[in-house]
């Protein structure tokens, strides 16, 4: 036997080992009378690791055995990370579907005891998030351009540091900041949608800066130099060469930031408040929002408790669907405009 012609396990070996481990673990747990899905997962992972390593080591030697072991550990970690996500989507879908109806997304809740829909919250969510995005993206993008293209020395370092600090601000603090700011300007008791947008911008701007900065950094310098060598001023180089090249990445960053703030509850509770009717004007009056809607339906259900709970779950489901649609749209645009960066 030559060195190249080593013995290897068959292709189905890893799957077979995991399946056998799962069966063995299930039998063992049932026999012990302690069957549960979580325990089954942990035990299967452990048994599969040990079994695969032993089997592979006896046939293929220690190097391949270790490779298989590490692969298995990584796959297990991935599954572990996926479990909460899948269980959350499953649970929200299961509980949210009964409450979801045409009325839910077209009617508001004004004067409807135990009924009505969440149209006002849907409109509020879109308006508040839209305004927050309109505030945050220009500011965040320009800050990122400053950091990557212009900034230097102490100011740059200070800015980066404070942006990092800003990402850690508790969202309620952002809400209180906006509340206080508008109360100082317009007097106490002021309520409008823009307050919520301002609060969300405080949370969104640092995310936009950070993601945009990373994306702008990977635009290769030779493209900037090619543009300069044509006698192009710096600002035009940034607008016409750097930003288009980074476009897909910038968009993804913005989408992540939107997804992060669209479900915010606390800062909107203190700024835009709770209301039952549709208000699409961000410059006057209270505005409802899906997360706050879900919260208040659950906290103060009224007479028809189950209907309220259903609506709260439906609102949560609607929020997840909106984020998913936004992400899908971003992915489509990303594919369309992605540029190969060498």
């Amino acid at each position, binding site marked *: 036997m030559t060195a190249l012609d080593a013995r290897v396990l068959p292709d189905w070996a890893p799957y077979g080992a995991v399946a056998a481990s799962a069966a063995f673990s299930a039998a063992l747990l049932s026999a012990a009378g302690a069957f549960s899905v979580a325990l089954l997962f942990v035990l299967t992972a452990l048994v599969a690791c040990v079994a695969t390593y032993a089997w592979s080591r006896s046939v293929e030697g220690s190097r391949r055995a270790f490779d298989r072991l590490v692969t298995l550990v990584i796959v297990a970690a991935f599954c572990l990370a996926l479990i909460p996500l899948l269980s959350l989507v499953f649970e929200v879908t299961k509980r949210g579907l009964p409450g979801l109806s045409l009325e839910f997304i077209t009617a508001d809740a004004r004067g409807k005891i135990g009924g009505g829909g969440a149209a006002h919250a849907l409109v509020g969510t879109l308006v508040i998030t839209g305004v927050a995005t309109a505030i945050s993206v220009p500011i965040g993008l320009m800050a990122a351009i400053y950091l990557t293209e212009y900034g230097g020395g102490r100011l740059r370092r200070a800015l980066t540091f404070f942006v990092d600090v800003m990402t850690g601000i508790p969202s309620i603090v952002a809400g209180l900041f906006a509340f206080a700011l508008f109360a100082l300007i317009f007097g106490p008791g002021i309520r409008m949608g823009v307050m919520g947008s301002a609060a969300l911008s405080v949370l969104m701007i640092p995310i936009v800066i950070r993601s945009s900065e990373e994306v702008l950094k990977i635009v290769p310098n*030779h493209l900037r130099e090619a543009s300069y*060598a*044509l*006698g*192009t001023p710096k600002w*035009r180089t940034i607008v*016409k060469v750097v930003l288009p090249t980074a*476009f897909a990445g910038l968009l993804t960053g913005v989408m992540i930031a939107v997804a992060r703030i669209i479900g915010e509850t606390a800062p909107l509770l203190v700024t835009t408040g709770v209301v039952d009717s549709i208000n699409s004007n961000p410059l006057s009056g209270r505005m409802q929002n899906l997360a706050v809607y879900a919260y208040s339906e659950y906290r103060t259900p009224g007479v028809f408790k189950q209907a309220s709970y259903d609506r709260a779950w439906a609102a949560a489901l609607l929020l997840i669907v909106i984020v998913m649609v936004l992400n899908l749209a971003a992915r489509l645009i990303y594919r369309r405009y992605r540029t190969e960066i060498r």
Partner: protein
Amino acid sequence: MGAAGATRVETRTGAEVSATLPGDVASKPGAVAAGSRPAKTIDVREVNLFYGDLHAVEDVTMAVEPNKVTALIGSSGCGKTTFLRSLNRMHELNPKARMTGEITLDGQDIYAPGVDPVQVRRLVGMVFQSPNPFPTMSIYDNVAAGLNLNTGRVKKSVKDEVVERSLRGAHLWNEVKDRLEKPGSGLSGGQQQRLCIARAIAVEPEVLLMDEPCSALDPVATLAIEELIGELKSKYTIAIVTHNMQQASRASDITAFFNLEATGKPGRLVEIGATEAIFTSPSEQATEDYVSGRFG
């Protein structure tokens, strides 16, 4: 200089279109002399270049002659590229870069206070080591980039003419004329480099700097670019950095040899002269050692 420079570029573009198109370069490769025009001389006096504390190039005094190809040769790290980049003020894009001495373009100091580096780069174009077409732009837009990026609105008909003329000038027109709207990154390496040359000559510079333009290309593409360089010198002043000794001997009229005395010392200009003289009877021992392949 700002306003004057801009209008001059425009009128020149307009005049060039009618002047050059009939004497089409690509269709009659031999007939380049007809389109010849006076180019500009770069005079370099006692130039020293630094990166922070690092003294990269020491006391270079030389001239880059008009309508000739000047090759800069020398071992890696001897400051050829740094020197080349100082000729169109690209050196200073590095925040730590400094320079002393004087560089003039037809007598005008390009480092004088009040001279806009952007204007200098419009007159002194550059082609880089690895082909770098703009990935977001089509072949057409890549060539038109200089016009689009600099002069704002240009008439479509003028743009079409400039693009065709530049692509013909770079010997690329026949290969890409049917797919001008395709992205430039879809071309082969040699085609991409010719695209970059087309992009550089589309803005009608006086001087063309080339930083090892063939180092990423195969011999066939290299030959194509070398022939192109030979034709371009009728219209431009050309300086080319190369590691390839044969390339210097084939493509250049004048050769400047740069060398380090020792590692850690700045690069110096050892010798400059007619290419034939440098390769057959150099006056310095270091030059002879280098061109005969004894070191470097």
